[in-house]
């Protein structure tokens, strides 16, 4: 089965999205799960192939109405508990 592809998005794909990807990679490792993670910027993320986008609330509204994939909003990029809950919830859906 193909691994889920998780795109972490921020304004330019070089700051907070990197932090988010790291946090998601930590969650995956901790839970013994596998997924491909990548970073993207809000301007081009919709043309990057992926199964889901993780993004901050402020940026989500810029893509929500055009996104063909699920968009998961992260309120607090430093909150490992929130990130873990949302990653696990998404992967549960994905694996159904």
């Amino acid at each position: 089965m193909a691994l889920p592809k998780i795109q972490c998005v921020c304004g330019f794909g070089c700051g907070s999205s990197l932090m988010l990807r790291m946090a998601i990679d930590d969650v995956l490792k901790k839970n013994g799960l596998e997924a491909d993670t990548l970073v993207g910027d809000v301007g081009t993320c919709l043309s990057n192939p992926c199964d889901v986008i993780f993004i901050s609330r402020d940026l989500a509204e810029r893509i929500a109405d055009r996104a063909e994939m699920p968009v998961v909003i992260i309120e607090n990029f430093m909150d490992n508990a929130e990130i873990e809950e949302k990653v696990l919830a998404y992967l549960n859906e994905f694996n159904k």
Partner: protein
Amino acid sequence: MEELVKKDNIKVGLEASDWKEAIKLAGEPLIASGDIKKQYIDDMIRSVEELGPYIVLTKGFALAHSAPCPAVIRSSVSLITLKEAVNFGSSNDPVNVVMCLACVDKVSHIETLQKIARVLMRKGSIERLAESKTVEELYQRINNAEEV
């Protein structure tokens, strides 16, 4: 201890009247060191105006940055604390710790940023950074992952 943020790039207890001034103050050490040109500060401010306050990543903390561009001479990071917190219009307001990130490309700074993120993600770390009374104290807290 590996130095993630240079002492010269750290300031504590600065006074900013609003979020724009906070970003400007955070960028100033990098102008002084020649790591960025003034244009980059304008870019960081414009990014928030265009994209919203998403740079406020967690309660009290903003990661000011813009895209890699010619106004960035060397990838660099600065960190300031504010005497009075300012609002960015984010759900994570008010902000009293601002980090300025400048990168020459999208990959060369990843390792440093990830190490910084590890420090920031510890519970209560933003509060501890904000409470730092001196540059030395803040320098120790951001650079010494063990202590934070």
